[in-house]
C-alpha cells in the first residue's frame, strides 16, 4: 500500500480520476472546484492525456460527449451554475448511452447564488436535471478518501451501465484536506475501448453511430425501457449506505456527504447525553437506499427521522417516500452557504429548533 498523502479534496479527486483511467478532461473555471481543472491542466499531459479549457460549460460537456463517444475515458467538473449549463449535454449523453464522470462541487443557489458549500442541487442530480427520462449514478462522498475510492472506480461503473456517474460534493469536500491513500495507476492495457465507440475505422454495416435521436415513438419507448431496466439492475447492484449506531436508535438522523460527518458527531453528542440517536448516510443518492429507511421505519424502537441538509429540503422527499408515513420525518436545513455545527443539529433534535 502506498504512503498516505495530505491532499485537498479537489486535487485528490483529480488524481484519483487520472489513476482510474481518465485521459480527457474538459472544463470551465468556477469556484469552488478550480483546483480540479488546474490540476488536470498539467497532470493529464504527463500521462498522455488531453486537457482543454472550453469556452463554456456547454462546450465542455459536449467535448465530453465527443471524447466519450470515441471511447475515451472523459470527465468534466463544475459547480452549481456551471452544472446547470451542462444539463443539455448530460441529457444527450444519457440518450446516447455514453459513459463519463461529472463532478459537481455544489455551491449555494438559485442563480449565481454564493460560493460557499450547499446541497441544493440534489434534485437536479437525482431527478433528472435535463429533459427526458434518464438517471445517472450519483454518489455523495463524505470524506476525501471515500471520494477518491469512488472516483477511481467511477469510469468502470459508467462504462458498465453506459451512463454518466456524478459525484455530488460541495465546497467543503473540495476544499478540505485529509490524509488519503491513493490507488494504483490503472494500466492502459486494462482499459478496453468499448465496441460501440466511433473509433473511425468502421464502414458499411459495422458503422458506429452515437446518437440520441429516435423519431419513431416505438423505438424511443423501447430505448427508455432499456434504460430503465438498466437503472433497475444498477439499483440492485450499486446501492450504498452507511448506518451508524442505528440498532437501538430512537431518533434516526439522516444526511449525506459532508453534512453526514457533522451529523455523525451529533449522534455521539446525543448518545453522551443519553439520547438514543443513530445515523443513516446514503452513499449513493441515486440509486437511493430506500430499503434501509423502510427497515428502520418498521422498527418499534424508532420514533422519528430527522433529515439534515444544506438546502431548504430536497433529499427529505426521498426519505419521506421511503418511510411512507410509517414514522414522522422532520427536516433541519441551512442554506445560502451557511453550515450547521454538530451542536446545531443536536439542538434541533432535542429542542425542535
Amino acid at each position, binding site marked *: 500500500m502506498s504512503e498516505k498523502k495530505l491532499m485537498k479534496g479537489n486535487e485528490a479527486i483529480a488524481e484519483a480520476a487520472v489513476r482510474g483511467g481518465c485521459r480527457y478532461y474538459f472544463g470551465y473555471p468556477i469556484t*469552488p472546484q478550480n483546483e480540479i481543472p488546474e490540476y488536470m491542466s498539467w497532470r493529464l499531459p504527463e500521462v498522455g492525456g488531453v486537457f482543454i479549457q472550453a469556452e463554456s460549460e456547454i462546450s465542455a460537456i459536449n467535448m465530453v460527449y465527443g471524447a466519450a463517444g470515441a471511447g475515451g475515458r472523459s470527465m468534466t467538473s463544475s459547480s452549481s451554475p456551471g452544472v446547470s449549463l451542462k444539463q443539455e449535454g448530460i441529457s444527450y449523453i444519457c440518450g446516447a448511452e455514453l459513459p463519463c464522470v461529472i463532478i459537481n462541487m455544489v455551491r449555494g443557489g438559485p442563480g449565481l447564488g454564493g460560493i460557499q458549500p450547499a446541497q441544493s442541487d440534489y434534485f437536479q442530480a437525482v431527478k433528472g436535471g435535463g429533459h427526458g427520462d434518464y438517471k445517472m449514478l450519483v454518489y455523495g462522498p463524505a470524506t476525501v478518501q471515500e471520494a477518491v475510492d469512488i472516483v477511481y472506480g467511477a469510469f468502470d461503473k459508467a462504462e458498465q451501465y453506459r451512463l454518466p456517474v456524478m459525484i455530488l460534493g460541495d465546497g467543503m469536500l473540495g*476544499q478540505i484536506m485529509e490524509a488519503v491513500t491513493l490507488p494504483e495507476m490503472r494500466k492502459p492495457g486494462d482499459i478496453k475501448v468499448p465496441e460501440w465507440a466511433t473509433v473511425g475505422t468502421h464502414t458499411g454495416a459495422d458503422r458506429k453511430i452515437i446518437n440520441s435521436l429516435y423519431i419513431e415513438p416505438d423505438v424511443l419507448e423501447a430505448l427508455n425501457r432499456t434504460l430503465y431496466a438498466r437503472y433497475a439492475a444498477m439499483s440492485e447492484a450499486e446501492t450504498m449506505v452507511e448506518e451508524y449506531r442505528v440498532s437501538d436508535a430512537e431518533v434516526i438522523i439522516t444526511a449525506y456527504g*459532508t453534512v453526514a460527518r*457533522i451529523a*455523525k*458527531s451529533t449522534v455521539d453528542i446525543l448518545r453522551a447525553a443519553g439520547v438514543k440517536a443513530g445515523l443513516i448516510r446514503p452513499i449513493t443518492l441515486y440509486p437511493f437506499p430506500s430499503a434501509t429507511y423502510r427497515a428502520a421505519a418498521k422498527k418499534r424502537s424508532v420514533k422519528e427521522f430527522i433529515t439534515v441538509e444544506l438546502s431548504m429540503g430536497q433529499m427529505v422527499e426521498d426519505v419521506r417516500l421511503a418511510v411512507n408515513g410509517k414514522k414522522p420525518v422532520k427536516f433541519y436545513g441551512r442554506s445560502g452557504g451557511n453550515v450547521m*455545527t*454538530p451542536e446545531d443539529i443536536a439542538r434541533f433534535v432535542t429542542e425542535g429548533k
Partner: protein
Amino acid sequence: MEKIIIAGFGGQGVLSLGQLIAYAAMYEGKEVTWLPSYGPEMRGGTANCSVVVDDKPVASPVIAVPDCLIAMNKPSLHKFENNVRPGGTVIVNSSLIEDKVARSDVNVRYIDANAIAHSVGNDKAASIVILGAYIKASGLFPEAVMLATIEKVFAAKPKFIPSNKDAFLAGFSA
C-alpha cells in the same frame, strides 16, 4: 481529540499554520481534517481554518466549540473567543492585538510573535512562532515531531528550513 481554530488576516500564514499541524498529525499516524474558509475574503480579508486531530476517523470537520483558538488579529479574537471550550486554550498574537481575553475559564498565552520572529531574523515567520507556542501549550506533539514536519514540508525549499525551525523553537520557549 483536539479541535483548533486558527484565524487572522489573509496573508498572515493562517492556513499554512493549520496545514503544518495537519501534516504533523498525518506523520504521527493520527486522523486529521483541515478545513479552510475560502472565497473572496481570502484576498486581504479574514481567513480561518479548522483543524481536527483524533485517534479515530474524524467525523465533523466543522468546529463549534474549539479546544484551542489561535487568534492572529483582533477581529478573529472577538469572533471566536467566546466559543472556546471552558478549560481550553487561546493563543493571542499580542503583536497585533492589544486587547486581553475577557474570560477567566480558559488558558491564555500572549505571544509577541512579530518581535520574536524579528529576533530570530525571520520577519515572515510570526505564524511559525505562534505554532511553537501552541505546541508548547497543547502538548499535541513532541517538539521533535514538529521540527521533522517543518523539514518535510519545506523539503522543496531547503533554505527556509533553519529559520523556520528557529522561529518554531523561539515560540516554543516563549
